[in-house]
């Protein structure tokens, strides 16, 4: 084995999930002792590729070579044995137990004098394991408290435990999935120092990320994924944030809808003032000091890679009561304070003000998948006349309104009886939109409105959002699709790590400029 042999080599990997081609012809070479960044937007296929390398998925075609040898494995444990380890985005730790127990579980050793016992019953050599762990921790600078329950440790320390877990198993290739997503800037700094140390000791590191600034700070080499394919593969030294951003973003859908000029801006339908939210798990604040407004007759787009505080913002808008103890700042909606100090409005009251919501995750937050279209249409409208009459549901009223709505919003099949889970993604979304527009909202929240929706439906949904604006509603559009943001928004805010890092008016932003801000390129 020479230094020229790549530590990892992927040749023509393919992976398909149902109708979705998640990975297509993936080629990748990772030099030994380097830090290799895998970048791309959500759903670009980077995690799929890494999970194949780690043995969690089996490739449909193609080959995996580790240190020049062709390998294939049935489970992660075989990959671990071959020296490949992964730090998952959600840590694989058991909260009440200490670092030693968490690291050793599944790789226990015992002293020779217990040989006569079956392996599963030989007392674990905790002292020996601890000594070895302390040595590894010193060697790589991964200091930690070995005695405290891991749930009491900071997120950054928990991550070190995960890394140490891999080193304890003699991993030579470490895959880190979005390692900085939960870290504070200081913790990120420390992580980078540690990663450099690991490389200096001959380990190979793969980082899955979307933060371009961090890529520029730490990586030796960058591979860019887009729509399941590798679209770029370059040394970090010869590239720039701008170049990476344009590779990463690209164009996916050609949006023909040229929106009409924005009408007059009206009153503020949403006014968010210095809003902050403390994290429930420790670690950094998911939202920090947000201030913005949305006015009647305009669409405000929030651009950003997922996981930069958008979900928490939406939660706060809709469920202020559940968060009032952890939040600071105020939210006013349609002239009413919905979160101000100790006072917070109930969800039903907020929606009754005239708020329509297209939720981020329609399966989890928007639909009763096993129930018919009719009941899904009713959900959230069920307390209003004419659908509710003296505590009873007026099925006749629901039926006629729902029939009209699915006609108007082109939900197929035209059946009120079919279960919502049986509809295609586009038709599910149209059903939700039909329902939310039924209350003629004056403020509309549209979160990832066209995710997983076919092209025809995208067009239709965009038309509807524009029509709502034309009718005088204010729209808050949250999307990680830049095309969508650029095509629809009258103003664009970019969120990164819980803050608004850039603001643009219509026509000022380009995909590249947004991409740089979304990747933290403007942020220090």
């Amino acid at each position, binding site marked *: 084995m020479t230094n020229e042999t790549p530590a990892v080599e992927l040749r023509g990997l393919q992976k398909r999930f149902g109708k979705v081609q998640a990975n297509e012809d993936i080629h990748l070479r990772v030099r030994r002792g380097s830090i290799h960044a895998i970048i791309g937007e959500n759903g670009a296929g980077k995690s799929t590729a890494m999970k194949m390398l780690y043995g969690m998925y089996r490739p449909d075609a193609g080959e995996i070579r580790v240190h020049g040898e062709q390998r294939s494995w049935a489970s992660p444990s075989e990959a*671990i044995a071959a020296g490949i380890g992964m730090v998952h985005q959600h840590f*694989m*730790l058991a*909260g009440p137990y200490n670092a030693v127990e*968490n690291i050793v579980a599944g790789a226990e050793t015992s002293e020779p004098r217990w040989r006569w016992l079956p392996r*599963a019953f030989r007392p674990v050599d905790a002292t020996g394991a601890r000594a070895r762990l302390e040595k590894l921790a010193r060697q790589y600078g991964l200091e930690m408290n070995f005695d405290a329950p891991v749930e009491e440790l900071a997120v950054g320390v928990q991550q070190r435990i995960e890394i140490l877990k891999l080193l304890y198993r003699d991993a030579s290739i470490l895959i880190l999935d979005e390692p900085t997503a939960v870290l504070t800037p200081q913790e990120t700094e420390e992580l980078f120092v540690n990663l450099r140390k690991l490389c200096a000791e001959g380990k190979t590191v793969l980082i899955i990320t979307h933060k371009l600034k961090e890529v520029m700070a730490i990586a030796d080499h960058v591979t860019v994924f887009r729509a399941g394919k590798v679209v770029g593969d370059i040394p970090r030294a010869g590239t720039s944030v701008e170049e990476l951003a344009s590779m990463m973003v690209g164009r996916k859908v050609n949006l023909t809808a040229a929106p009409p000029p924005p009408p007059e801006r009206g009153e503020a339908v949403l006014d968010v003032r210095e809003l902050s939210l403390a994290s429930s798990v420790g670690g950094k604040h998911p939202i920090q000091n947000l201030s913005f407004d949305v006015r009647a007759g305009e669409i405000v787009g929030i651009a950003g890679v997922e996981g930069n505080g958008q979900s928490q913002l939406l939660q706060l808008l809709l469920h202020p009561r559940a968060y009032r103890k952890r939040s600071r700042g105020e939210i006013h909606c349609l002239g009413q304070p919905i979160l101000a100090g100790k006072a917070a409005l109930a969800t039903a009251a907020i929606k009754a003000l005239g708020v329509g919501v297209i939720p981020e995750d329609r399966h989890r937050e928007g639909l009763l998948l096993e129930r018919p279209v009719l009941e899904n249409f009713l959900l959230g409208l069920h307390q209003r006349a004419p659908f509710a009459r003296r505590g009873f549901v007026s099925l006749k009223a629901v039926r006629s309104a729902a029939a009209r709505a699915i006609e108007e919003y082109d939900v197929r099949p035209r059946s009120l009886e079919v279960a919502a889970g049986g509809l295609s993604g586009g038709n599910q979304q149209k059903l939700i939109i039909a329902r939310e527009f039924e209350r003629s909202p004056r403020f509309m929240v549209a979160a990832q409105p066209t995710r997983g929706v076919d092209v025809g439906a995208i067009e239709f949904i965009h038309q509807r959002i524009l029509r709502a604006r034309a009718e005088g509603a204010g729209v808050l559009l949250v999307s990680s699709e830049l095309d969508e943001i650029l095509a629809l928004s009258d103003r664009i805010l970019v969120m990164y790590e819980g803050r608004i890092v850039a603001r643009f008016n219509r026509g000022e932003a380009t995909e590249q400029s947004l991409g740089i801000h979304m990747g933290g390129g403007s942020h220090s």
Partner: protein
Amino acid sequence: MSLDFAMWEQMAGSTLRVSTPLLFAVLGGLLCERAGVVNIALEGLMLVGAFAAVAAALATGSPWTGAAAGAAAGLVFAAIYALMVVRLRANQIVAGTAINMLAAGVTPFLCKILYDSSGASPNLPLDSRFAIAPVWFAWILVVACWSWLHYTPSGLWVRFAGENPEALDTAGVSVNRVRWLAVIASGAIAGLGGASLSIFLSSSFTRNMTAGRGFMALAALIFGKWKPIPAAAACLLFGFADAAQIRLQGVTLWGEQSVPVQFIQILPYLLTVLVLAGVVGKSRSPKSLGLPFHRG
């Protein structure tokens, strides 16, 4: 009656004796629930253990074969339970209820076939019963359970299977295998608890003789925060309440008023509700308790 030393000594003795079946059952429950599988079937597992122990002791004349048979019967029923909840991913509450019903039906059914009475088995001769051995054995098992849970690989796996099965799975240990083994071992130990009830505390099998002890063990498990030593202490406390209640029958305090034994009887259950609600201390269950595991 005065509360003299002899009485206290007697109370201590009977507390140790009546808490023995509870101790076995609570250890069985602990093993199962720490691995992430709810065990409301303890009652039924004890009951089949109690019956099998009497049947074997009557047949062979030895309490030791009785105990072995009790453990085996518990193991078989627990294997049915494990098949349902681990392999077929049935709801653990539902399947546990079914196991309890099955045990409540099967034991008198067999009793009738073997002894021509569905209500009770014949009495065991004295030398086919245990004198004191189960008490020792139960306490040795408590210590063994504690050290096994904390010092061996399999103990660690069980704890992880109940807390974060994904972590165990990514570390290369099969979660469902750990759970399978934990559930059937749990059944064997609960079966021993039943055996200690029928061939140690009493001298025959009677219909539904566990009379809620399986659920009381569950209460002790929660009250003991799913930890071996505190759970064993909870068994002693509940056993003491049981012994005191027998002792206090007919005893009058506060003038003419006698003490309603019912208030002592409900104490374990009341304490459990309060502990779960966080009114008295706080008991936290293993995080993945009750959730079937499947990858991805």
